[in-house]
């Protein structure tokens, strides 16, 4: 059973104590993080239930909370997967989806099964490893969602865009 109440409560506690400002002892900051993580768990179930009901199909939905630092185990390992993009705005939005991947060539299809333009970009990472990201533009209706399917392609011609390095030395 999903619920947003624990996350609501955690947010209320954090906001009441100005938890994001750094004005707490470290062990208290850890407890704020624990409360947020604990609140997110049942909220994730609630979102999965809502998505299943709206899409009329039940699947094991995966959330990638570390997407901002290019970490998403599912997109990095799966040969095919679906990307559900939900738009909370009351107007249509075009959004560039970026997902970390380990391979170089993918076919991305829109909700109508039509292939959309995509590219894989290799970017430098702070962890000393090359990182590839799959990019494609998603179009999402107002207060709704779009489901894009991604599959690894067998085509032999990879379209990986490598970075051009241009080092500068101090004058």
């Amino acid at each position, binding site marked *: 059973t999903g619920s947003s109440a624990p996350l609501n409560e955690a947010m209320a506690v954090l906001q009441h104590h100005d938890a994001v400002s750094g*004005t707490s002892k470290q062990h208290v900051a850890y407890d704020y993080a624990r409360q947020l993580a604990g609140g997110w768990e049942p909220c994730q179930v609630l979102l999965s239930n809502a998505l299943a009901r709206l899409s009329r*199909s039940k699947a094991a939905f995966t959330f990638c909370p570390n997407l901002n630092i290019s970490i998403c185990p599912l997109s990095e390992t799966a040969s095919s997967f679906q990307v559900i993009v939900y738009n909370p705005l009351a107007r249509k*939005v*075009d959004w560039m989806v970026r997902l970390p991947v380990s391979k170089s060539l993918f076919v991305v299809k829109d909700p109508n099964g039509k292939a959309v333009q995509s590219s894989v970009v290799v970017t430098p990472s702070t962890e000393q490893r090359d990182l590839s990201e799959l990019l494609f*533009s998603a179009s999402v209706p107002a207060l709704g969602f779009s489901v894009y399917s991604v599959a690894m392609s067998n085509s032999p011609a990879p379209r990986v865009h490598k970075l*051009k390095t241009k080092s*500068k030395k101090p004058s």
Partner: protein
Amino acid sequence: THILTIENEFIRATFHPKTGLLMQIENLEKNLLLPVQQGFYWYNASVGDNRSSQTSGAYIFRPTRQQPLPVSRWARTQVVKTALVQEVHQNFSAWCSQVVRLYPGQRHLELEWTVGPIPVTDSWGKEVISRFDTLLETGEVFYTDSNGREILERRRDYRPTWTLEQTEPVAGNYYPVNTRIYITDGQVQLTVLTDRSQGGSSLQKGSLELMVHRKLVRDDGRGVDEPLMELGSGAWVRGRHFVLLDTVKTAAAGHRLLAEKVVLAPQVVLSQGDSVLYNLW
């Protein structure tokens, strides 16, 4: 000698050939050109002085001097250009980097910065800022929002309801920025949207700055009794600044629509695709 640019149908960003820093932004739609130098600087945190024993800490921002020090005067740059994105990766130091990004159809420049872990082995607390320097004749005025609603005019060394005796020339001019800060000369407006609440100011004519991260070695004596020195994942911070160059007349429409898109951003959920028909019961 090669001048590096990234551009789409609306924006062109030019980088200095020698330093790799952002040098100029152009709004191609409105034919606006603004020389902008953007870089990262840090304020040395005060440990108290003759005037006051107050140190810089979690609650208190109190730099030792008015001028911040540059993290680096140049950046090692790497460029990626594809049909879907154009990026300039700037590496300022081992603990400070940035990606300047443009997507097709986008009317703003996206600056994704990564800062940390801030080194304090020299025993100096550091409060890191991203600063935009322009030639805009902004006087002493800049604007910040209040919880994304009312935009308030801020004037350096001034309070609208009392006569201010400024004792902290930097911190005394810092204001909360919840979603945006901007400067204007009455014709052209440079707006920076944030993805989180930050402190911001304009300490010089045509300049705009936002504090992105801080690490302090002393407690400020306000009750926490610990210096602001996170060691875990909090030691690294990654965030984004969205930069808009527009005319004053049309700037509000641009930054309001973009702020909605940033605050209420689309949510991405993945599934492996093995699904069964959902039954409400």
